[in-house]
């Protein structure tokens, strides 16, 4: 199903980055996707189930949570972080700033697991230079 993805700060994401980005707290705060409750009912997904978010620029698995800050129709919200950044639009439009907000995405329910921070970063295939 097609949506527009918004990203940004939540206080829980802020608390998690300062507590430790290697903690489960970070996964719980940032590897999530907020969705309106009506939308969840329409799609038949429950809180805690996983979805795959795909954009023109990448894909990521995140956990669905009910949006406490109601979203406009057709919008999803993933807190800023390495999970959201798998799918946002990297182009800077010659301003030096990538497009972190309002990215068209397609989502499908999935059985695949949400990756923790080190596993997610391993996906980039860091070359050991020494």
């Amino acid at each position, binding site marked *: 199903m097609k949506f527009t993805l918004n990203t940004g700060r939540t206080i829980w994401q802020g608390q998690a980055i300062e507590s430790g980005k290697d903690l489960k707290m970070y996964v719980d705060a940032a590897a999530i996707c907020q969705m309106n409750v009506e939308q969840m009912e329409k799609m038949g997904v429950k809180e805690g189930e996983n979805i795959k978010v795909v954009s023109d620029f990448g894909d990521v698995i995140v956990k669905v949570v009910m949006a406490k*800050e109601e979203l406009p129709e057709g919008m999803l919200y993933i807190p800023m972080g390495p999970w959201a950044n798998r799918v946002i639009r*990297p182009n800077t439009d010659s301003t030096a700033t990538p497009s972190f907000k*309002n990215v068209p995405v397609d989502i499908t329910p999935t059985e695949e697991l949400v990756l923790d921070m080190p596993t997610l970063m*391993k996906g980039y295939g860091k070359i050991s230079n*020494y």
Partner: protein
Amino acid sequence: MELVKNVVCPFCGTLCDDIICKVEDNEIVGTKNACRIGHSKFVHAEGAERYRKPLMRKSGELVEVSMDEAIDKAATILAESKRPLMYGWSCTECDAQAVGVELAEEARAVIDNTASVCHGPSVLALQDVGYPICTFGEVKNRADVVVYWGCNPMHAHPRHLSRNVFGRGFFRDRGRPDRTLIVVDPRKSDSSKLADIHLQLDFNKDYELLDAMRAVLLGHEILYDEVAGIPREKIYEVVDALKNAQFGILFFGMGITHSRGKHRNIDTAIMLVEDLNDSAKFTLIPMRGHYNVTGFNQVCTWESGYPYCVDFSTGTPRYNPGETGSNDLLQNKETDGMMVIASDPGAHFPQKALERMAEIPVIAIEPHRTPTTEMADVVIPPAIVGMETDGTAYRMEGVPIRMRKVVDSGLLPDREILKRILKKVKEIKAASK
């Protein structure tokens, strides 16, 4: 247990300066007055990895090395790269930033800070059309109309509203009841729930709404029933509130800098503030994220003439965001060696930039295990500014505040690490001449 008072919080640009730290055995074990995020920074969380020794990635694994070896390697990477990039700077103090600019000049590097993924578009706009800014003190004591556009301070700057809107001021002695609070956000955000007026505009339509408001202000009629999803009558009502302000303030954030139009949105927002000054007193303050992101823009400007994205490759500073921004350089695969300090691009850069960081040598001057250290070849842990070492930081509207040292970590501060790398880079450059 000892109580250390008047500590400055090293998290966000609000730079709260009334924190009380509870210290036991040279460790901060609790705080008073801090928000949820600030508290998390001060108090070590169980299980989180704090680096105490320099590390180097050898055969894929980070292993402990001596400080000398780490400094040597970092200097070699900077000196020998053809297009080195030095990124971050927003979570450290101004003296370290000044050494950083000198190091960038010496290494002929590009130096850039987190503004380039944050309020960079605001910097571009204020260079275009000006910067009618004021201080928090003026907001607290005078503001009767407060606008938060594209920002959600209840989550991102948790004490901002309590200090500037709910707080009582000299001419606003009842605090919140003496002010009109307007929030502009496409979501029903927690900040918008506190507002007198919530303009729930369509996303990516900030420019249209700002322009419509300017048109009304200049005496024109709106010819459509609604603009950006906001009914015409509502726009008239808001413009009326704005232009009758005794002292108005526009706070703006990522909702407007990251949406379509980017710096052009801010151009128009600043012009709206300028237009409003025909009938009201009106000012603006960008909601800066990191506690000293503003400081880097100040330091870099007085050292090089430009606030961020400064390219020293020709020996003289050159400034061209869109070409010399960190994301431009990484995504275009120009950068062949990167130093990250006091920030976490691993967590906050898009996938295409990280693909480049995975290929090239990366130095991280970073106290904790982060997505950036997962991509790093050299990790040098510094003392944390505002907790383990002192220094100056600039609040979001440009007021410098001295950060305090609360406990002793025995680790080198950023400025000392950078001085050692600078000395080594100079030696390598001199030897190759």
